[in-house]
């Protein structure tokens, strides 16, 4: 079975937020909410500064605390590439998953259910890339099957240095940042 993930090249990213805007229009994300966002990490003193820019979202963890804590069975791991999803109709809006997620990736939709990045499963199932990946003007984002050694994402992880976010949380995040 496929295991979908993302590999994002922080050397190319300029933090322009195109991924954020595209996600909002593609998924009709309501005003005031985001499924993805940009993080900056700046270290050093002027003028010797190192900066890392990251496009962040749900890490679609292999060990997802949001799924394990869900009392309604709404949060689940999908059969499509292990994407972590929410059954909107089953969700009670109790916010347990929001408390459990170390990445602050979830929010309660105005209609009362937990919501977050779906890796654009509706597009992926049609063979398209997630909206954020497909619009990125720096081509810094890559999406694919991490279990397939021939996939672009696997090859990038073989050839480049990378890190994931909060690996110490034990969540086994599936978004990797090339450095």
């Amino acid at each position, binding site marked *: 079975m496929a295991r979908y993930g993302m590999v994002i090249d922080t*050397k*190319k990213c*300029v*933090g*322009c*937020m*195109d991924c*954020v*805007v*595209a996600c*909002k*229009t*593609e998924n009709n994300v*309501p*005003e*005031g*909410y985001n499924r993805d966002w940009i993080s900056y990490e*700046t270290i*050093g*003193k*002027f*003028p010797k*500064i*190192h*900066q890392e*820019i990251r496009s962040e979202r749900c890490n679609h963890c292999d060990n997802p605390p949001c799924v394990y804590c869900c009392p309604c069975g709404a949060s689940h791991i999908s059969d499509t590439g292990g994407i972590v999803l929410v059954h909107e109709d089953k969700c009670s809006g109790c916010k347990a998953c929001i408390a459990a997620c170390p990445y602050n990736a979830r*929010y*309660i939709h*105005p209609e009362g259910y937990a919501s977050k990045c779906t890796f654009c499963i509706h597009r992926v199932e049609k063979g398209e890339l997630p909206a954020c990946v*497909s*619009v*990125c*003007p*720096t*081509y*810094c984002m890559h999406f694919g099957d991490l279990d397939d050694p021939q996939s672009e994402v696997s090859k990038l992880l073989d050839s480049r240095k990378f890190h994931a976010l909060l690996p110490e949380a034990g969540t086994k995040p599936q978004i990797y940042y090339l450095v």
Partner: protein
Amino acid sequence: MKSVSRRKFLQISSATFAAASALGSLKYINKGTKLLAGDDTQKGIRKIPTFCNLCFWKCGAIAYVKDGKLWKIEGNPLDPLSNGRLCPRGTGGVGAYSDPTRLKAPLIRTGARGSESWKVVTWDEALNFIAEKLNKIRATNGPESVAFFAHGIGGNFLKHTFKAYGTPHIFAPSFAQCRGPREVGFELTFGDVIGSPERTDIKNTKCMALIGTHIGENMHNSQVQELSQAVENDASLIVIDPRFSIVAGKAKYYLPVKPGTDMAILLTWANILIKEKLYDKEFVSNFGFGFEQFAAEVSQYTPEWASVETGVDVNLIVKSARELARFKPASFVHPGRHATWYGNDAQRSRAVALVNALLGNWNHKGAFFQPVKMPVPPYPYPPYPEFTGQRADNPGKKYPWAGEEEGLTNGIREATITGNPYPIKCWIVYSTNLMNALPNQQETLKAINNLDLLVTVDVNPSEIAGYSDVVLPESIYLERYDDLHSSPFTTPFLGIRQPVIPSPDDQKPNWWIAKKLAEKLGLGNYFPWNNIEEYLKERVDKAGLSYSELKEKGIILGAKKPVYIEDGLEVKFNTPSGKVEFYSSQLAEKGFDAVPKYEIPEEPPAGYLRLLFGRTPVHTFSMTQSNPLLQEMLEENEVWVNINIAKQYGLKSGDYIKLKNQDGVVSNKVKVKATERIRTDCVFMAHGFGHQSKALFNTYQKGANDSQLVTKYKTDPLMGGTGMNVNFVTIVREA
């Protein structure tokens, strides 16, 4: 946080209603609401190719309409500018449609200028009012007393109307407030301009130096895409900027230059390249003119001197020059775009051109390509009335290299204030917010007070609209046809803009406004076509292309042509000597420095910091702050203050302050960004925020407006552009 946002949404909804009611016409609101809700009879998804208008890059786009409602906009994969990927503003173009501040109906001013009080009128009333005034002005002062200002392709038809009316005064701030100095500097040197889109071959470069230009924060789409390719190729990037920009974080060499001293680095680089014999000797001996004088002149600029002058480590200056030389001719110094900084900008741009000349990189792969353009014949209009008098924007050709095509905006403003060489009675302003584009708002207001008529055509109630006598609401780009698009680039192409969705209210497309106004002025013969598609089709047919194919695909590509010497391109230099002018006889003849010289910039007074401004990737000028989608990405600007300076003032990031400039002008309150990423002698903010127009109610006074603080400007003696980085500010604690 989420519930606050929800509340905010409700507030905005009610504010929309209040503002619309204030315009006194519920009729339009009702009509608007109905259309905004969408037409559910059209089920399914429609994809309409068009091109973007969120900035001037004009990327090919595909708009998606789902069940009759505008859904999303993506790049057109056929388009060589976007390669199927828009920038965040282009992706956020749907927000231009739902923008709650949009102008809905023609307005005629009822209160004092700037009071923003209006009555709603019909198009017929508005255009009759304008035509009557224009006829009177033509009879008493002549057509030359009307000035037309435009930004972007949408201005083409109105420009045509005013050329037919007989005025030579057609303006765009893109010359004297933006890239004019760069074009003049390159033309004097190579006999050719950089143009738009820039002819820089970033994707193939091995080494690129950026001076003050922050690609990645300015989202000129093709340039950002190519920057990413350069990073992928491990190209060496050299970034010279007082601020550690986003691209500085990707640079091999970052030179934290003292503001205003860039020329010292350029001339020193030239000296290093010559002294160390690293320049392209063959190119210089074959194509160079006046190299000896140039070499003698720049020999005074040593790295040690430059280090003291610019505050940049001497090794960085030397190493970066050698890095450029190492990769020549696939290395270049980027000419930038917004170049009106210190008032000696054409000469600085010439220094940029001359370092490039030493690298022998003109028309070489990895540096500057030769742009090619799809040839499309113009529409066969009758000839315009001839103007034989003197232009008012540059009397006596005081600025010998002021462009006539885009004119001197600040020159015509001066003429409007003084009445010299003759009175200017009317400004027609299309889609350019002159209050924020020109330096010194008080001068603009003085000029406006001398006008018999000020008309603004725009989609939103910009600041200049607030001072206008008549405001005409234009359909946004997703609701209209526009002129054909064929920009010079690496591949010839033709693009079409076509309506995706109807206008929600009583807005009209620019071509309709231009044609109707021309008819009312008795100039109907200049618009022999009945509707725009007739015009477009005729031009496309004459170009030997298929109009239906263009409509269907959005883009038609032309045949590839050589754009590099590597492809067999032959190079010619259209200068008086026919060569690359290291020494410019043209400049010498007019009494200017034939070789650029370093000038020491004015120091900030004690306790003051230099005000710098620039771009953010999610907004364009002062055009997009009310777009709800882009506003969500960045609602207000921040002022970047070095962390140590911030500490001295007891400030931390997020604190609100005000800035007061050397002339006592105080800004709106603005958030501090206390950061390591800027020098201690300057502050930086994104341009376009801190709106002063109340009708832009969702962005009114959010952040600080740099244009308010730019009261001082230094005019470029070669081309008349306004250097605007010459203002100083102090920090005022917000109580």
